């Protein structure tokens, strides 16, 4: 029996108003029956376009050329729309990221699944409801009959992703194409979805997994293709590729992943020699506290989002704050930033009361505490260029003549060139924007910077650069960081101590090594167990 997917020399180009853009430049790809193949790459690598081309959904402006393009032994290069409709859902099912928007929000999940059954006439009309329940049961959705009548927004992230997978499985396809199927999910839910995909594969389903995250695909893929700029730079069995990567780009990707083992070394080759040590951490003086929070509680109506949270941050210390979505970590960040009053509890910053005081009282100390958010673009006034954005936070006493020099110096410190001064942040890349935000934050030489998911929206190699930059700046200025993240690896890489939050409360805190190596609380243990780890031991 031949391969389920057989692609040779596939090219996909798009016509855009500014000219032709080549998204895929000649890749080969095969998926054997029962095999799980993963395509890994950063944004713009062409991995999603490849996936969509296989079901004829690359888009109207796409031009496709291939020496061979076969699905289940059929040449699909000459397929007309009618032929494609027989392929979609029946030969190959497609699962996208985030079922909240990938399932029709106005229809019940049962109706979405039944739609596939009706389109491909899988079962008779009278049996559809029963089959929907069966499919939901297959993907381990509890109470399938009740859930089938609910809308996507009424289900949790994990449940609706399962429902989305059920709808892709309804046409009994031999191949499931999953494009970032776990990306919007919390780490414990991600682990469950991966387990579900592995289970279906064990039952005979072929999988083509698209992801930006090597660690995720490493869990279930037999083979991995690494894509960059529309080409496959390396491919091979998962275990071999992770243990002994041959291509420099694969190695660079693996090096860029922050984790326990990356502590103290550079993640990115562009910020200094690769895999070399970072500058020593600033000396932490726990006795000299920068910030003390005690008994913080915040309620909205009868819903308590933060419950009795307390911690201290010493001078020069990096405190990691981890938790899944809805754990209350961002609310804590807003309280500490002095943007939200807690219902109970107090914060003292630099030994001065920081909560329950007038904004006027906080203002003199504001310059000592800066905030970097996940969305740098949203934190810039949309009318301003880079220079004005950064200059706004300069010391008002600096003379007009010197201000540009100061801004240039700050840009230099974050690794940006002065020719960006007049550019608008919208015209910058995600990494550059975050650097501008960092430059603005360090302009005041603050004693504490609150970083709220600062690298979550970035590609892994850009994330590596930004994390290296933060480590460098922290060492140079002795700045304390409150580093909020859902990514345990990032926190383990960067933080001195860690605070684990769940359901608004702190479940565990202590030095990073202790908490992550000997977790005492069940929740921390489940987080760590769910963490997809890269088995890269044995690598030099």
């Amino acid at each position, binding site marked *: 029996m031949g391969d389920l997917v057989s692609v040779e020399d596939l090219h996909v180009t798009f016509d855009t*108003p500014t000219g032709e853009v080549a998204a895929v430049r000649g890749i080969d790809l095969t998926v054997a029956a029962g095999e799980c193949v993963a395509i890994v790459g950063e944004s713009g690598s062409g991995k999603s376009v490849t996936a969509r081309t296989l079901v004829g959904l690359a888009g109207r402006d796409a*031009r496709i050329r291939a020496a061979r393009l076969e699905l289940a032994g059929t040449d699909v290069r000459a397929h007309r729309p009618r032929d494609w409709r027989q392929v979609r859902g029946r030969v190959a099912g497609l699962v996208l990221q985030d079922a909240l928007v990938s399932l029709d929000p106005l229809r019940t999940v049962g109706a979405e699944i039944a739609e596939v059954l009706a389109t491909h006439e899988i079962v008779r009309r009278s049996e559809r409801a029963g089959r929907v329940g069966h499919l939901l049961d297959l993907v381990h959705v509890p109470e399938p009959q009740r859930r089938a009548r609910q809308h996507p927004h009424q289900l949790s992230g994990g449940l609706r992703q399962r429902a989305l997978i059920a709808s892709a499985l309804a046409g009994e396809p031999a191949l499931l194409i999953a494009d970032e199927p776990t990306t919007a999910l919390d780490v414990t839910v991600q682990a469950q979805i991966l387990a579900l995909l592995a289970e279906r594969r064990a039952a005979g389903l072929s999988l083509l997994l698209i992801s930006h995250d090597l660690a995720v695909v490493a869990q279930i893929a037999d083979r991995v293709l690494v894509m960059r700029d529309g080409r496959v730079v390396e491919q091979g069995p998962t275990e071999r590729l992770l243990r002994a990567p041959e291509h420099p780009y694969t190695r660079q990707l693996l090096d860029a992943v922050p984790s326990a083992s990356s502590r103290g070394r550079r993640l990115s080759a562009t910020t200094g020699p690769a895999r070399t040590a970072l500058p020593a951490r600033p000396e932490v003086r726990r006795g000299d506290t920068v910030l003390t929070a005690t008994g913080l509680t915040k309620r909205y109506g009868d819903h308590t989002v933060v419950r009795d949270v307390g911690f201290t941050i010493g001078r020069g210390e990096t405190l990691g704050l981890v938790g899944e979505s809805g754990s209350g970590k961002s609310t804590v960040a807003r309280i500490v930033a002095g*943007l939200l009053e807690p219902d109970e509890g107090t914060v003292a910053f630099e030994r001065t009361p920081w909560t329950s005081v007038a*904004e006027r009282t906080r203002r003199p100390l504001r310059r000592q505490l800066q905030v970097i*958010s996940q*969305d740098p673009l949203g934190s810039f*006034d949309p009318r301003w260029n880079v220079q004005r954005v950064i200059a706004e936070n300069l010391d008002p006493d600096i003379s007009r003549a010197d201000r540009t020099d100061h801004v240039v110096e700050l840009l230099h410190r974050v690794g940006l060139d002065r020719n960006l001064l007049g550019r608008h942040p919208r015209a910058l890349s995600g990494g550059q924007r975050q650097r501008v935000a960092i430059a603005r934050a360090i302009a005041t030489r603050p004693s504490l910077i609150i970083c709220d998911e600062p690298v979550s929206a970035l590609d892994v190699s850009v994330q590596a650069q930004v994390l290296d930059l933060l480590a460098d700046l922290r060492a140079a200025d002795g700045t304390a960081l409150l580093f909020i993240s859902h990514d345990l690896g990032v926190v383990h890489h960067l933080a001195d101590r860690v605070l684990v939050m769940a359901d608004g409360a702190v479940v565990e805190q202590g030095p990073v090594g202790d908490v992550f190596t000997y977790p005492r609380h069940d929740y921390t243990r489940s987080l760590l167990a769910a963490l997809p780890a890269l088995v890269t031991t044995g690598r030099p």
Partner: protein
Amino acid sequence: MTVTLDGVPAGATFTSTTERAAAATRRRRLRIGLIAAGAYLTVLLVAVLWPAALAPGDPLAADPLNVLAAPDGSHWFGTDNLGRDVWTRVVHGAGHSITIAVAATAVAVTGGVLLGLLAGLSHRIADETLSRTLDALSAFPTLLLAMLFIAITGPGTVSLIIAIGLVTLPRHARVVRGLTQLVRRSGYVEQAVTFGLSRPRLVLRHILPNAIGPIPVLAVIGLGEAVLIAAGLSFLGMGPQPPSPEWGAMLSEGRNYLHIAWWITILPGLAVTATVVSLTVLGRHWQARLDGRHR
């Protein structure tokens, strides 16, 4: 995947060239529309400021020997029931119609911006009261509310201006209120709080400029609407009184001769339509550019 012909995968070049050509045509057509709108509005501006340049005659001069003459070389738009030249009346009427619309829009935008900012910046109770009142004002059909006002004050140009201004004010106010709140809750304003900016500074430096940025665009589109409402009210006899050459009033006078002289009514009407279309094209184009910049 692209179109396929005779089973040949449409990878070939024709798709790209046709689609690129289509995009270019789209852009060219857009530009042509914009140029046409701009040209018309320029002519209109001349008609408002210096009508004699386009039509040197007297809009009120009657010619009893030449009534209801169809459009020809000497009378481009024909003559009306009193033998007055319709082209001259349309050109001179622009001054009345456009002045009324501009003045009314000025009233609406000024009031709307002030009320909108007030609602958007104030705390919950004040905001709620203002917003509910604006909601309630929007519940009246604009034309009827304007008629209520004119019933109280009596017809005339000034009443018309104030009436149109007042009835279109709530919409502007609601837009500005929404924008203000959006900006107030935006990431950059929150960020500016962490820089230690005082509240007045915050409002002046970040909130105000960003909240009123789209106002000129709204004003241009609102101007078109004001022209329409003004024409409607004058048509019902609630604007400038005859024999003033105002577009709506001309339409109203001409309808009695519609069966024998369509030009008295339809041609001034087309002037109204062309004005509103041009303003809308201009406003939409501007809006699209703003949106593009902010994306």
